[in-house]
C-alpha cells in the first residue's frame, strides 16, 4: 500500500496562533483550534474573509510562523518539530513573496538549489526543465528587477517547485496578476493535481475556487466553518452558487456560537 495513502498531505489538529497586540497590550487570536485535512492528488481551496486566518494558517504550514498550540503535519512531518524537513517538502508562494531583485532567475534557482543540497549537474538539468516548462529562456539571465510581473510570477513558481515538492502552498497566488498571468497560474495549479501532488491555496476569487478545487474549506475567525466538495457545501447550506454558500456559512457563524459544518452532514 502506498505510504501516502495512509497519511494526509496536510493535517492540522486544534491549531492555534496568537499574536501580541502592541496597541492594546493584549493578544490577537488569529487561529483558534483549526482542524484541516488535505489529501495527495487534490487541490484544496481555503476561503475566508480578510482576517479570517488563512494567511496565518498557510504561513504556519510553511514554517514561517510557529504555532501557539495544536499540531500541524505536512507530508507527515511536524512543522514545529522538524521545520527544516517541512521546508524541504513544500513549495510556498504568495502574492507578497518577492524575488531577489539583483539576481537573475537562473541565479535565484541556483541559489535555492544549493540550499536544497541538489548536486550541481542535476540542478542544471532541473533548471533547464523549468525554463522549458515555464518559457523562461528569454529572460533567464536578466535581473529580476527588470522583469515584467508575469515573468516574475513564472520565476517565483519555478523557485517554488524547483525541488518538485509533494505539497504546494499558495496564498492568494493570483492577486495582482493580469489576465494572462492569472491564466498561467491556474493552468499550473491544475497540472499539479494531475501529478498527484497536493495543492493547498487560499483565494478571494470564488470562480477560481469553483474551477480548481476538489474540496473547499471555509475559514472564519480562526476556525474552519465547513469543509467538503462544492456539492457537499451546497448540500450543507442549500445554496447553489459558491458565493451564496460562503455567505451562508459566514452568516451562520456570526449568528450563533461556532459549530462547524461537518463534511457530508446535511444542511
Amino acid at each position, binding site marked *: 500500500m502506498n505510504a501516502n495513502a495512509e497519511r494526509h498531505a496536510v493535517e492540522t489538529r486544534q491549531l492555534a496562533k496568537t499574536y*501580541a497586540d502592541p496597541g492594546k497590550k493584549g493578544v490577537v487570536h488569529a487561529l483558534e483550534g483549526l482542524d484541516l485535512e488535505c489529501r495527495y492528488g487534490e487541490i484544496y481551496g481555503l476561503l475566508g474573509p480578510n482576517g479570517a486566518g488563512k494567511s496565518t494558517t498557510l504561513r504556519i504550514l510553511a514554517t514561517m510562523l510557529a504555532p501557539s498550540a495544536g499540531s500541524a503535519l505536512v507530508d507527515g512531518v511536524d512543522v514545529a518539530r522538524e521545520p527544516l524537513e517541512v521546508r524541504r517538502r513544500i513549495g510556498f508562494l504568495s502574492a507578497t513573496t518577492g524575488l531577489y531583485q539583483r539576481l537573475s532567475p537562473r541565479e535565484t534557482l541556483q541559489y535555492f538549489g544549493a540550499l536544497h543540497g541538489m548536486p550541481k549537474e542535476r540542478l542544471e538539468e532541473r533548471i533547464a526543465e523549468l525554463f522549458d516548462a515555464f518559457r523562461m529562456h528569454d529572460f533567464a539571465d536578466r535581473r529580476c528587477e527588470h522583469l515584467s510581473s508575469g515573468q516574475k510570477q513564472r520565476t517565483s513558481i519555478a523557485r517554488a517547485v524547483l525541488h518538485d515538492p509533494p505539497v504546494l502552498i499558495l496564498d492568494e497566488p493570483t492577486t495582482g496578476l493580469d489576465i494572462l498571468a492569472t491564466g498561467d497560474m491556474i493552468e499550473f495549479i491544475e497540472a499539479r493535481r494531475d501529478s498527484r501532488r497536493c495543492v493547498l491555496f487560499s483565494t478571494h476569487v470564488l470562480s477560481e475556487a469553483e474551477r480548481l478545487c476538489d474540496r473547499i474549506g471555509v475559514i472564519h475567525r480562526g476556525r474552519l466553518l465547513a469543509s467538503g466538495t462544492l456539492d457537499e457545501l451546497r448540500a450543507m447550506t442549500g445554496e447553489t452558487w459558491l458565493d451564496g454558500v460562503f455567505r451562508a456559512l459566514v452568516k451562520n457563524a456570526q449568528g450563533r456560537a461556532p459549530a462547524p459544518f461537518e463534511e457530508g452532514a446535511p444542511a
Partner: protein
Amino acid sequence: MLETEPGGATIRAMAPGTLKTARIVAAKELRSCLRDPQTLIYALLLPLALYPALFWVMIQVSSLIEGRRALREVRIEVIAETAAEADAALALVKALSAGQLSADGSGDTEAAADDSAPGDAGTDSLRVLAGPHGLDVDACVDRLRNAADARANAGGDSARGAAPPADAVLLVRSDPNAPLLLLKLGTRPDSELAAARVEARLAELAAAARENAARAHPDPVVLRAPLAVVSRDLSSGAQQGAYLISVMLPMFVILMAVFGAFYPAVDLTAGERERKSEETTLLAPAPRGGLWLGKLLAVAALSFAATLLNLFGIAFAANHLLAMLGADGIEVRLGLVEIALAMPYAAVLVLLVAAILTGLGSLTQTFKQGQSLLGGAQLVFMLPALASSLPGLALSPGLAATPIVGIALALRMVLRGGELEPVGLLIAFASHLVYALVATFAALRLMGVELDADGRAPGLARVRAALLPRKSLPRRTP
C-alpha cells in the same frame, strides 16, 4: 527527478548544514550587494578613492586659492605720526613700492608715489599709499575701521569711483626708538593679506639693510637677525609620519569599517523586508541560523574590504596629502607588515560593527527606517574612535578592554610600528573578540524573532524577546 517518494516527488538531496548554509548565503548576499550602486560607492569606491580624491581636490583648491590670492590687489597706507616723520614715511612708501611685491615678480622698482595717482604708489598686487601726516595711533585705528566700513558699504568693489580705502596702515612713530606699527583687521582677509605682504617686504628691507651694514662693518654678528629663533624638530620625517598615522589612522579605519557595513546592513535587513524578499529567504530549506549568519558575514566581508581598501588608499596618497598640507618633511610609511599586524584587530572590529548594525537593521521595516536608526547608531563607534585620537592615551589594560577605544589604541600601536605592548594588545584583541561574539549572538537572536503574518512586530518587544527568554514574542522555527 532525483529521488522520489511514492505519491510525492520531492527531489531528495543532502541538505547543507549551518556553516555551509552561511557560506552559500554570504556568497549570494555579496553578489547581490556588489550589484547595488550605493553599496559599491560606500563600501568599496569611497574607502579606496577618498584619500587620492582628497589629494586631487586639495591640489585644485590650493592652486585656485593661491592663484586668487596672487591676483588680489590690496592696499597699505603709510602714515607719519607727526609732520617730522613725513620724509621717512615717503621713503618707506618708495622702498615698499619696489617691484618685488608684484604678483609676477617682475621687479618693477620704478613704481613710486609720484608715478601714480596723487599719494599713491605700488604694484599690481600691493598698492602703497602715502597717507596724511600727523595722525596718532587712535586716529589711525579709527581711520582704518572707517575705511573698512566704507569698503563694506561700497560692496567691496574697489574699482568704482575714487581710490578705495586702505586695507592696513603702517604708522611711522614719532619716537625714533619705537618700531613701526602695523595696523590690520584680523577678521578681514584683505587686511590680513596686506599686512602679510608688508611684513614680508619689511623683512626683505631689513635683510638688505643688514647686508649693507655688514659690508660696511664686516662683523658676522651684524648679519644675524636680532632675537630671531629657528626651531628644528629632531624627529625624522618617518617618525613624525608614524606619529601622525598612530593618531589619525585608527579613527579613519573605524569610520571606514562603519561606512563599509552601513549600506549592506540596511540592505540585507530592512531593504530585504521592504522588497518583500524576506519571506523568500524564510522559505529557504536551510537552517535559519545559517541564513542569518550568512547575512552577517556578508556585511562583515564588505566592512573588511572597506577597511583594507582604506588602508591601501592611505598608504598610496598620504605622503602627497601631507605635502599639500605643508608637511613636506613628514614621511608616511605604511608597509605590508603594519597592515598585516592590523588585520586581526580589523577582523574583530568589522565583526562587531557588522553584528551591531545588522542586528539593529533587523528591527526596522523599511530602508528609510534602517538608515535613520543606523545613522544614529554609527555614533556608538565614531565617538570612541574620536576619543581615542586624543593625545596621551596609552594601551593600558583598562583602556584596551574598553569597547572600540581598545581597538583604536591597538591599531594605533601596530600601525605606528616600533615597540609593541603585548599585554595590552592581547587584552584588546581578546576583549573585542568576546564583544564581537556576544554582538553576533544577539544579532542572530534579533533576526530570529518571529514577526506577525504581515511581517511586523514592535521593535522593543523584539529586543526583549531576543535577549530575554519567554518574553512576549515567539522565536522563529529553526
